[in-house]
């Protein structure tokens, strides 16, 4: 059967948040025809989410019913999300920027690699991303949190609990402020203000938190994109002569003829795992041998601190305080950079079935026991610290596992560069000591502290750089090897910084979109 051919100016593969940024910007600024190809299903619509959220609250059921592909069980992957809107359908909406230092750790501290662009160059794109997502934020101290323009939305107010906890951190000498979030503090772009439903992760029932489906819905309604869900791109194919990519070969999960997408420009926007996977399957963009390499992220140390404060857990549990006070390495000290966050918590204060003597508590006794133990409060503290990625922190093709279409699945193995591996134990010890100092300053104590084994907020795999020998794309996300092939968002990151990467992925994607637009 002859393949069904779909032609466009721009073919975007993937429909997550980076793809949404590229499509929206191109649709606004250019007349180009845009086709978006998504392997997953349509996501549930906003009007279905209150009921799905109810099932989540009552039974723990997932509110995203068709968010992954069966047969795609992958070693080392951190989420199975694959649907229209991608992983950002169930993100927490937390949108800090990276710090200026993140972009030049080699120049400043002699570790890792510098990015091929500076924070200052990215600042306008951060601003644009903040406007498109609707970021509510509070300006931190200018020297720690520089920005060219104010946040588009007023900050999410600090709850009574966070106000008390900010007083506590101030006693410990730490300046903290409201975490920037893509959650409406006031109605914005037709979506309502947040009303503290407290289920940002996994689902906002009212659409106060940005998710990419809103962008897709608007673009589709306006006829500005053609989005094909349930369509798996298996290969990108080069022209027989030359280095341009000529088509993407795909299968519809519902069967039928093979599909062939022809476009002037191809944009790979499949996140940190599937972007490298597609390029490896296609044998493209890999002159450097670095496709899939330098997977990056950051690790965290989390803890709970018991404090002599009367707090009221449940006021806005997913919102936090943040500080960038520890983003710079003091002169002459070992390399450690981290952020710091504080949330309200009920850990250690939950209702219990037995008292300290093991007696079963029922009726009034149980409530009285709970009330006694909640006379004081708990804070959750977390620090994400920078991990320098190793070249062999990598995604590779797994010869032993295949997709339902016979292609090798990827396997992922994150690895610290030697300098980070050497510092790991010491770094975590320093952060635990910080928690202990904070607890002491408030007259409390650390209940527990632990470090996640995995690297959070993954990125990399197609890192950007000026040198084609040591990077996969240039700073615009254009493949060094193929002038009409772009990789956008998470995969292009050189490092994972010390904060959630999504806003940075969006800023980078918008910068790529500007270059894609110029090249059309």
């Amino acid at each position, binding site marked *: 059967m002859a393949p069904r051919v779909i032609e466009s100016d721009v073919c975007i593969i993937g429909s997550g948040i980076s793809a949404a940024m590229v499509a929206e910007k191109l649709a606004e600024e250019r007349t180009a025809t845009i086709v978006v190809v998504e392997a997953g299903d349509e996501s549930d619509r906003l009007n279905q989410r209150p009921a799905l959220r109810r099932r989540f609250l009552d039974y723990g059921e*997932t509110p995203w019913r068709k968010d*992954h592909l069966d047969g795609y069980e992958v070693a080392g992957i951190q989420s199975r999300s694959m649907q229209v809107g991608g992983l950002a359908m169930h993100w927490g909406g937390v949108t800090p920027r990276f710090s200026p230092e993140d972009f030049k750790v080699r120049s400043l501290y002699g570790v890792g690699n510098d990015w091929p662009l500076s924070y200052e160059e990215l600042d306008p794109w951060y601003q644009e991303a903040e406007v498109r997502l609707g970021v509510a934020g509070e300006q931190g101290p200018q020297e720690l949190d520089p920005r060219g323009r104010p946040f588009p939305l007023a900050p999410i107010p600090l709850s009574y609990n966070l106000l008390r906890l900010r007083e506590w951190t101030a006693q410990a000498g730490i300046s903290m402020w409201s975490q920037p979030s893509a959650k409406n503090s006031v109605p914005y772009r037709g979506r309502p203000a947040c009303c503290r439903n407290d289920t940002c992760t996994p689902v906002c029932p009212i659409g106060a938190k940005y998710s990419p489906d809103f962008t897709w819905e608007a673009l589709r309604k306006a006829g500005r994109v053609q989005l094909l869900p349930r369509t798996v791109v298996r290969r990108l194919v080069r022209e027989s002569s030359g280095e341009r990519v000529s088509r993407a070969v795909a299968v519809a999960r519902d069967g039928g003829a093979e599909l062939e997408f022809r476009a002037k420009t191809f944009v790979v926007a499949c996140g940190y795992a599937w972007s490298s996977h597609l390029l490896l399957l296609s044998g493209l963009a890999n002159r450097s041998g670095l496709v899939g390499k330098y997977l990056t992220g950051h690790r965290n140390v989390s803890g709970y601190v018991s404090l002599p404060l009367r707090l009221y857990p449940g*006021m806005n549990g997913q919102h936090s305080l943040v500080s960038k006070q520890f983003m710079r390495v003091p002169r002459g000290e070992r390399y450690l950079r981290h952020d710091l966050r504080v949330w309200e918590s009920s850990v250690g204060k939950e209702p219990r079935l037995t008292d300290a003597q093991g007696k079963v508590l029922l009726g009034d006794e149980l409530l009285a026991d709970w009330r006694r133990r909640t006379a004081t409060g708990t804070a959750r503290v977390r620090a994400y610290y920078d991990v320098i990625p190793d070249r062999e922190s990598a995604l590779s093709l797994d010869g032993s596992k295949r997709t339902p279409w016979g292609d090798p699945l990827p396997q992922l193995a994150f690895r610290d560069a030697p300098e980070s591996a050497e510092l790991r134990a010491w770094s975590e010890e320093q952060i635990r000591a910080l928690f202990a100092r904070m607890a002491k300053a408030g007259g409390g104590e650390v209940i527990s502290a632990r470090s996640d084994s995995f690297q959070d907020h993954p990125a990399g795999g197609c890192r950007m750089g000026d040198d084609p020998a040591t990077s996969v794309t240039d700073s615009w996300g254009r493949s060094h090897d193929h002038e009409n092939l772009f990789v956008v968002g998470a995969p292009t990151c050189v490092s994972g910084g010390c904060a959630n990467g999504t806003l940075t992925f969006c800023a980078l994607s918008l910068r790529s979109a500007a270059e894609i637009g110029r090249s059309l």
Partner: protein
Amino acid sequence: MAFLPRRRFVLQLAGLLPLPFLARRLHASAVADLDPRLLRALASAVLPGALGASGMERTAAGFERWLAGYREGVELVHGYGTGELRRTGPSPALRWANQLRELDAAAQRAHGASFERVTVAQRQGLVRSALEGQRLAGMPAIDRASHLSLGLLAFFYTSAEATDLCYEARIGDSTCRPLAQSERRPLPLAERS
């Protein structure tokens, strides 16, 4: 054709039906089997008196709705940092209905009266006996509670109403509330915003 014994016939018939269908029927039948009067007697023994009669009734009725709405084998929310998928477990309804009957039988044996007719203290004693030997600590997940009494407690104590009752404040956890009001201390339970 020789007649099949009734039990064997039913089992063979069941073998022809899809498993999810059978599970749903079994679950519905067990939910219907949960005696509402005994359940309310249990609620008044294990829930705090501060709830009052209407709060007890609201909780018991809510628990019945929760149980009726339970579905086996449904995908759970994804864990953080893992691609592993998990699903809801078997319905606890049949097990819990049996446990409620056992509490009633134990009341008859110990006190010569139905579970709903004995005093709250006697009911609590019977629940404690039923829980004897179990290693208890925090609240279990509702559906994985080893005993109906624990399922009922977990149902109540994971509610926004329980949190408000504990803190004696109108926190309204996980309910839609104006953002601006979050800056002030929650109002005492008795007051309205």
